[in-house]
């Protein structure tokens, strides 16, 4: 049945024809070096992964060469935004233009159009784990092509790739499409080292409250483990407050273990990924360097297993390969000097955050629906899960957050998010709007790194 579905999905004029037997054989015999799950096990440093993707094969090949020279740990394959919205026709057109004119008419690699036979050459050539970065609500075809290419880490999830990345895509479909992705990953995980799934914690990267981020991370983890995935990464991005990042890290690590055990999946490997600042970047490139370096120090402080880097060109556009590779080199330099960092805890903040997360999780589990994905689906619709600055129509957008004077992100309005009065009071007690209107305060808080 499932195999039949896979055949239908993969049969399209936009990609090359699928030979599932050959793919199975390829994965079974694939080099361990292609599996990030293996690298996590065998490395004791924070793995460094940049972002990056160009329209043409040659440009990605060169990009990987640069990254390798800079001491990269994990290579990225960032997909263009047309492919993300399954607009393969537009992607094709723009790819053709990019190839003809040697100009980048796409903001990433149209993997489906390139196909797995071509892409696999590049993957096996570099023999380094590659992570698929996309933002696609319906990633079924894309993930099939990725796995067949030898890309053994798949980022995303039904919530994290929907709420920040889409306006109209139907929520329930996203859950079902991602269920498909989880199942494919789980199946292939039995052939060799496990395929790693990673959730996308940054969400819309703007004033995201850690409680909601963690809830979404936990839920996507559970949805994935349920289907048999054995290696999963939860993630979040720099909040703007080192303290809040440390608190978030401590809480998410503790709760990921707890909730995985709760559904009998305590055997799965759970990792923590930290994203360097994902919000609006300064237009002064030296400031960007400072920001990025500070992110690196914080990643080390929060004891992440992997960190995803930005570049000094972030405010301007897709970075050149040289600039991108420099960011990797500089990050590795800094990580190498940070050793034996202090272990930090903040009992009060951790208790408050844990309580908020547990309360929201409980509300989700109390939804009367029969499966977890339907519970989550309902919880988004009724605003129990609600993120600021989502373009998606299903997201209620009633929860409002602002920064306190230490730049911690706090709930100002909880909307329908079921955090307790006590927790809300705690959050609000930290806020001081001063003379500003709420809107001005929020505009300021969006731009703290400018």
């Amino acid at each position, binding site marked *: 049945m499932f195999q039949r579905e896979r055949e239908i999905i993969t049969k399209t004029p936009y990609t090359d024809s699928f030979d599932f037997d050959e793919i199975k054989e390829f994965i079974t015999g694939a080099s361990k070096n292609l599996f990030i799950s293996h690298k996590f096990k065998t490395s004791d440093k924070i793995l460094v992964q940049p972002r990056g993707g160009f329209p043409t094969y040659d440009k990605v090949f060169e990009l990987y060469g640069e990254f390798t020279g800079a001491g990269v740990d994990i290579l990225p394959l960032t997909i263009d*935004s*047309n492919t993300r*919205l399954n607009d393969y026709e537009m992607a094709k057109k723009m790819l053709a233009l990019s190839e003809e004119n040697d100009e980048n008419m796409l903001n990433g690699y149209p993997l489906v159009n390139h196909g797995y036979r071509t892409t696999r050459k590049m993957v096996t050539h570099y023999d380094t784990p590659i992570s698929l970065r996309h933002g696609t609500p319906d990633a079924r075809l894309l993930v099939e092509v990725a796995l067949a290419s030898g890309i053994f880490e798949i980022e995303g999830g039904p919530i994290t790739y929907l709420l920040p990345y*889409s*306006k109209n895509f139907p929520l329930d479909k996203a859950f079902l499409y991602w269920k498909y992705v989880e199942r494919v990953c789980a199946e292939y995980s039995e052939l060799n080292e496990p395929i790693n799934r990673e959730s996308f914690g940054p969400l819309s990267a703007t004033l995201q409250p850690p409680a909601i981020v963690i809830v979404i991370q936990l839920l996507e983890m559970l949805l994935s483990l349920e289907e048999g995935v054995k290696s999963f990464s939860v993630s979040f991005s720099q909040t703007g407050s080192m303290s809040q990042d440390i608190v978030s890290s401590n809480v998410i690590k503790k709760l990921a273990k707890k909730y995985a055990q709760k559904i009998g999946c305590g055997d799965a490997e759970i990792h923590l990924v930290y994203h360097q600042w994902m919000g609006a970047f300064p237009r002064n490139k030296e400031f960007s360097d400072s920001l990025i370096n500070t992110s690196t120090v914080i990643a080390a402080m929060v004891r992440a297993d992997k960190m995803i880097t930005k570049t000094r060109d972030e405010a301007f556009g*897709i970075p050149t390969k040289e600039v991108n590779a420099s960011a990797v080199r500089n990050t590795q330099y800094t990580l190498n000097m940070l050793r034996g960092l202090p272990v930090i805890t903040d009992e009060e903040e951790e208790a408050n955050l844990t309580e908020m997360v547990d309360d929201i999780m409980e509300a989700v589990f109390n939804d009367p629906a029969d499966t977890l994905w339907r519970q989550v689906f309902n919880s988004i619709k009724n605003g129990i899960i609600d993120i600021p*600055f989502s*373009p998606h129509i299903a997201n209620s957008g009633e929860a409002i957050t602002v920064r306190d004077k230490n730049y911690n992100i706090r709930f100002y309005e909880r909307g329908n998010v079921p955090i307790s009065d006590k927790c809300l009071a705690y959050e609000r007690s930290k806020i001081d709007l001063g003379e500003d209107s709420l809107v001005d305060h929020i505009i300021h808080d969006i731009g703290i790194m400018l």
Partner: protein
Amino acid sequence: MRVVTGVVGNDIHVVANRLIEISLKERGFEVFNLGVNTYLEEFIDAVIETDADVLLISSLNGEAEGWSRDLLFLKSRFDLEGVLFAIGGNLSVGEANSEEIVPKYKAYGYDLVFHQVDLNEGLDTIEEALKERV
């Protein structure tokens, strides 16, 4: 003054869009915000439907050029003489400078082009242009 705004193409960067809506309202415009992920045809339809004075398109993710190639054709199908066409945000994939970008987009049919220009600066320019038109 009526203004139609939104983010063109498959672009879902919503933050600027929210701020633009707030700023336009503060400046006294009647705002029809189509939000992110809006195709060129939808913009044109909305301009006609609302009889807008200004179409203010944002693009952040580098897609704008791909979509703008059809603008002249669409414009030619309707009488949109009185409407001010403005586009702003990050108008290229990768780093580029305004000297290159602006003439290109003007040729695509925009009256005002703001590549990596501060929002308030851009809106000031738009308001001035509107005054001149009257």
